[in-house]
């Protein structure tokens, strides 16, 4: 499986993401610059964390207009797995690939620590290696992770099982303790916690690795004969 790590001016978790895929997961991966005009050769798209365009105006607001985002939208429509972490999640929200918006953390502080997440839905291409209700530990690092959507949207997210991860102890004021959601089709996941920073026991935990393994497993089942 071949992954793309999209790099915007101001991305800073791109190297962690690349490392997670190449060295821990053992799959192919390439950096793709934000002005790239094709993602056709890639099977999975990863939008890393950081401060794209300095978070000017709103987090993710400017990145959403880069060339590559047109291709990300195309890839999403084609059903390819798209994972946005932290700033990547914020960009997916601004691009309209996921519903809702981010507000400043309730505490107004930047939070950087490992948190407990509950796997709310293990029937997605991102979570099939976890068990339902399992608690995993993944670090967060953000100032604007306070997820918001209107009541109607929240009801729809619940009804379609689009809430994939919730916080056990809500760190940022996020609505309904939401840490990660998918789109209706289930092939676009946005999450504030950083699975790419939890791929090796040496670095404090490997609970994030299963997410990348899940993506590969789902992809093999769909694309490889006799997988």
């Amino acid at each position: 499986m071949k992954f793309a790590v999209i790099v915007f001016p101001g991305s800073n978790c791109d190297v962690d993401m690349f490392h997670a895929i190449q060295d821990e997961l053992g799959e192919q991966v390439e950096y793709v610059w934000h002005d790239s005009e094709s993602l056709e050769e890639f099977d999975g798209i990863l939008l890393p964390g950081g401060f794209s365009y300095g978070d000017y105006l709103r987090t993710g607001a400017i990145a959403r207009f880069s060339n590559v985002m047109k291709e990300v939208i195309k890839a999403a429509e084609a059903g390819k797995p798209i994972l946005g972490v932290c700033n990547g999640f914020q960009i997916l929200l601004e691009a309209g690939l996921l519903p809702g918006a981010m507000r400043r953390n309730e505490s107004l502080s930047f939070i950087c620590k490992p948190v407990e997440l509950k796997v709310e839905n293990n029937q997605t291409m991102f979570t099939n290696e976890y068990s339902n209700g399992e608690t995993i530990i993944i670090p967060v690092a953000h100032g604007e992770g306070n997820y918001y959507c209107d009541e109607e949207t929240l009801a729809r997210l619940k009804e379609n099982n689009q809430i994939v991860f919730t916080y056990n102890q809500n760190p940022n004021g996020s609505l309904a303790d939401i840490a990660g959601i998918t789109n209706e089709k289930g092939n676009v996941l946005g999450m504030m916690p950083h699975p790419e920073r939890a791929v090796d026991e040496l670095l404090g935990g490997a609970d994030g690795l299963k997410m990348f393994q899940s993506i590969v497993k789902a992809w093999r089942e769909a694309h490889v004969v006799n997988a």
Partner: protein
Amino acid sequence: MYKVKVFVTLRESVLDPQGKAVTHSLHSLNYQQVADVRIGKYMELTIEKSERDINEVVNEICSNLLANPVIEDYRYEVEECVTL
């Protein structure tokens, strides 16, 4: 030329943690009469005249980029000015 002043604020239904913190600070400065503070953004745009209606253009700009309709409202003032 138009000078357009755009004000973007969080929607009434959306909690404003910054505004809340500032309200608390004002209370600790003994301004108990301050009931609420909402923090927003102020932007000034200089826009050249075109065939298109200025209101149409500004509304488009605001809803496409300057404000996020999920959590923010905007209002604006248009002032016609002479270029020197």
